[in-house]
């Protein structure tokens, strides 16, 4: 947190609100398939023109030796094209192991990490999942940042993703 000086009030208006926060619930569906691998999942914030404003999470097979799990990062096609190929994996605070079927929570404070530098505006939460020998699916939820009121929005996947919900709080 930077110190607040009255003289900077005008400048501060254009900066992101610091108190707001954002919580995401991602459900990975339990699938009855012969060969199951946990999906690779990327979670990010995109601008209305679909460019990437902030990366929030990348779940991939970080445990394989020699970082071999990076071979399939490109299967999260949208994310790979828009931002993944610019990054080096693993990345601190961003990448983590794949998750088991079930609901997973992510929460981000407005004054820290990826949200701290997010200018006010319209955005979409984007979640893309790609499963080895399975399919690929992407979901989006629009939201405004910083939020004016506490709000929750949801989307539902059809095969690789289950329920997705986004809660924002001013």
């Amino acid at each position, binding site marked *: 947190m930077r110190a607040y000086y009255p003289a900077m009030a005008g400048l501060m208006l254009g900066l992101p609100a610091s108190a707001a926060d954002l919580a995401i619930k991602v459900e990975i569906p339990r699938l009855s398939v012969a060969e199951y691998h946990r999906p690779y999942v990327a979670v990010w914030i995109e601008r209305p023109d679909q460019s990437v404003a902030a990366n929030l999470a990348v779940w991939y097979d970080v445990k394989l030796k*020699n*970082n071999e799990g*990076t071979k*399939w990062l*490109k299967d999260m*096609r949208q994310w*790979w*094209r828009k931002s993944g*190929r*610019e990054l080096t994996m693993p990345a601190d605070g961003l990448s983590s192991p794949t998750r088991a079927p079930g609901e997973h929570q992510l929460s981000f404070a407005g004054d820290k990490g990826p949200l701290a530098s997010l200018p006010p505006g319209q955005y979409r939460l984007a979640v893309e999942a790609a499963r080895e020998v399975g399919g690929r699916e992407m979901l989006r939820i629009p939201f405004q940042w910083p939020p004016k009121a506490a709000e929750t929005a949801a989307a539902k996947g059809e095969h690789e993703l289950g329920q997705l919900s986004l809660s924002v709080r001013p």
Partner: protein
Amino acid sequence: MRLPNRLAAAAAALVLALPIAAEAHRAWMLPSATVLSGKDVWVTVDAAISNDLFFFEHHPLRLDNLQVMAPDGSPGKAENQATGRYRSTFDVKLDQPGTYKMAVVHSGLFASWKENGQNRRWRGTPARFATEVPKDAPELRVTQSQSRMEVFVTSGKPSDTVLKPSGEGLELAPVTHPNDLVVGSEARFRFLLDGKPASGVKVTVIRGGIRYRDNLEELTLTTAEDGGFAVTWKEPGMYWIEASVRDDKASIKEASQRRAGYSTTLEVLP
């Protein structure tokens, strides 16, 4: 074909030099992937001459003139080269991040003349031309043929070094990166002839998988004044792009005519 296999393949590889035979065959390379991530990245490429794209069912493509260019512009290695009955194949290890180019470039002469009232045809290099073609033959016509077939693959982030034109023959100068093609978005390219905009060139665009559909769904475009053309991809898949021009700007003195052809295989992702 009555010709021996190797010869037939060579002839077909120069198919762009043969306006009559060009109708039926298509020469192509098909990479196993064009967008790759991770370490220890390899691609394998099939190369063939066939009617249906991208099925190997007619002749293998000869790899004699294969060149691999790494993202930094240095020559790369085409490993495990093999030529079978219907296709050739080779592997490239993508040691560097960025865009690689694999190209098969031909430049040669084609001659036709009359001998004792019979039509004679000949194809070869300028060096062999001197001894194999009678200079004073009746109705002697000599055409220079230039052809370039390229594919692009990218490990990690796309780069531009390999996209720089050589300035010889017909070449594609991508505006949209050739490994950044997505359904629904417009891709722009330019054709250059000897490094200058090639306007009014007919460009053929065909999606692979011809065997399993009734309609060829071929797209024919014409390049604009600046050599440019644009494609909005309706479906994902591997696409074959081909163009050729004829003119009298032969760079080899024995030839009066020149034919320059280009083809590439581009992958469009969903």
